[in-house]
């Protein structure tokens, strides 16, 4: 066990899985150059056959990963930034998500498509997407959005061993956060198992990816007002640990979802709908959503930052739910 960053967790998970199973290989743009440090030492360890630089042809190489998976390989694709998944939408949505089903279960597509959520730093609208929820709307893709290094390592290893396509979204606001990482080569966190990041009794805050640290900060602030918040991290969105979420809401009677994505059709909205449908009787107020405004992300830092969820917005929502007004000049 040693403290390591979220990015290092990705490196370790990939390294361990590539060492364990030689059908696992990795490809993407500038993998060899190792831009974000998730493939440090890989060429020396595994050679350029299993560590491949690709041309800027996302539809081509993500489609190829699907094909390689179908014939028995277990590719990891590093698509770098999640906005660059769009050129490959055709292969992801029509081919990779659906092949197993349309061929009556004959095909298996064990591949992992990794990409980061690169927002909050003046990268402007074409680079700042937090787009996991649009992939949730097509069945057949598993989706993970871990919020810390520990979860990242265990879930990515599980994703590589999973027999279905998994989209792994890596929130760049979590990149440098550290956790103790187990070195057991079989340390796995199964997809579909959420986690209570902080226990509480008054309100459930269900937060996704980079919103989890924000929710934890908000929970601290709320504790000072005597409000006890429970922070629920679904960790994976498909499959979704519905029971964990519903159990928490039944306990607290109040729910807020926090999602860095745009609000409309966000994962947070889906979870809000789930709660309204299945825990309505336990609710003492409306389910509130804290998400990013339905506008593109502007470049200028002067106007970008205010659009995202923040601890202040979460605190305000919680106070509204438990009936405490904001202090006058907050």
């Amino acid at each position, binding site marked *: 066990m040693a403290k390591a960053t979220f990015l290092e967790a990705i490196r370790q998970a990939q390294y361990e899985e590539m060492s364990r199973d030689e059908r696992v290989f990795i490809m993407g743009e500038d993998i060899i*150059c190792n831009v974000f440090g998730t493939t440090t030492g890989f060429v020396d360890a595994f050679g350029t056959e299993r560590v491949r630089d690709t041309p800027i042809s996302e539809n081509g190489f993500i489609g190829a990963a699907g094909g390689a998976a179908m014939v028995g390989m277990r590719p990891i694709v590093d698509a770098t930034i999640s906005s660059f998944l769009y050129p490959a939408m055709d292969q992801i949505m029509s081919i990779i998500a659906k092949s197993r089903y349309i061929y009556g279960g004959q095909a298996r597509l064990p591949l992992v498509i990794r990409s980061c959520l690169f927002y909050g730093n003046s990268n402007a609208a074409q680079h700042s997407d937090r787009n996991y929820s649009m992939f949730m709307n097509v069945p057949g893709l598993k989706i993970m959005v871990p919020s810390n290094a520990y979860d990242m390592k265990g879930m990515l290893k599980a994703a590589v061993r999973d027999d279905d396509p998994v989209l792994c979204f890596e929130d760049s606001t979590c990149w440098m956060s550290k956790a103790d990482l187990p070195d057991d080569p079989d340390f796995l966190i199964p997809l579909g198992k959420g986690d209570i990041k902080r226990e509480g009794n008054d309100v459930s805050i269900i937060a996704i990816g980079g919103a989890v640290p924000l929710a934890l900060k908000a929970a601290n602030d709320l504790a000072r007002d005597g409000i006890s918040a429970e922070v629920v991290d679904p960790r994976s969105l498909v499959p979704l640990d519905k029971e964990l979420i519903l159990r928490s809401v039944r306990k607290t009677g109040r729910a807020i979802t926090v999602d860095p994505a745009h609000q409309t059709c966000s994962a947070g909205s889906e979870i809000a709908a789930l709660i309204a449908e299945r825990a309505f009787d336990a609710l003492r107020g409306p389910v509130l959503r804290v998400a990013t*405004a339905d506008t593109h992300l502007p470049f200028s830092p002067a106007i970008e930052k205010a659009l995202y969820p923040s601890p202040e917005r979460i605190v305000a929502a919680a106070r509204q739910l438990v009936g405490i007004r904001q202090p006058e000049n907050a």
Partner: protein
Amino acid sequence: MNGPDLQRSLQLFERMLLIRRMEERLGDLGKAGELPGNVHLYIGQEAVATGVCAHLDDSDWVASTHRGHGHFLAKGGDPRAMAAELMGKETGICHGKGGSMHVADVSKGILGANGIVGGGVGLAVGAALGAQLDGEGRVAVVFFGDGASSQGVISEALNIAALWKLPLLLVCENNGFSQFSPYETVNAGDIWRRAEPFGMPGALVDGNDVHAVWRVVGEAVARARSGEGATLIEARTYRWRTHVESEESFLAAPYRTQEEVESWKQRDPISRLEEFLVSEDLEKDVAAIRARVEGVTESAITDALNDPLPPVSRAFEDMFANG
């Protein structure tokens, strides 16, 4: 086609120098932490944008890339509005909403820079289609990199443009790198040769020789304007600076040698033209241009630095045509 006359050569020199000086100043500001986001500089490649855009009017179209400052300035974009955009200011050409990777001035035919590699290609094909339907002899140009040549949309555009005889120039700026990967590691064959199978003229040109670029593009633009269709041009050049200004902070190892960079600096497109102009006894004009460019650059940067930031309400504007 003959080379440009001396008057035109002086204009080319002035435009290349403006691009160079603006970017040097912006690069310094970036290093000093004064620019938000990621900045991709064009330094070393100025002859391409300049030699191409010298043949275009405001009514012609260009579509650009993440490395778009040179295209913007070469096509007549305002230096101060560009600088302000890079600083995220209200006076920026996009009110600070696009930043370095999205400079655009549609009124000048600059359809805009794109952060998505290959993003401008479809737009330029469409602009060429619009120009053809208009029948007023306009042309469209799309700039793209050697890395972008791997996007499927390039092949699709070649076929569509050839099939419909569109007034389009596909200008590939091959600077030897797709981000940090050298050309040979991610490209098969030569890019300019991809025109031939579609029955389209393809040309290879020294992208550090503005006269050579000017000649090749002149012929292609003339063909396009007279209804003879599209041309693919590959200009070989080199970027002097980092791929992205922040790269030294995150790259573990260098991906090219200092000697290679130096050898390309020996082929500086601006010094080459300057030597030619001096040999034609135009030393005085060169000096006057240098002074003028210095003045324009200085006031563009200083004014932009003093400009106000946008109000938060800006973030919610421009989503739809009616609000």
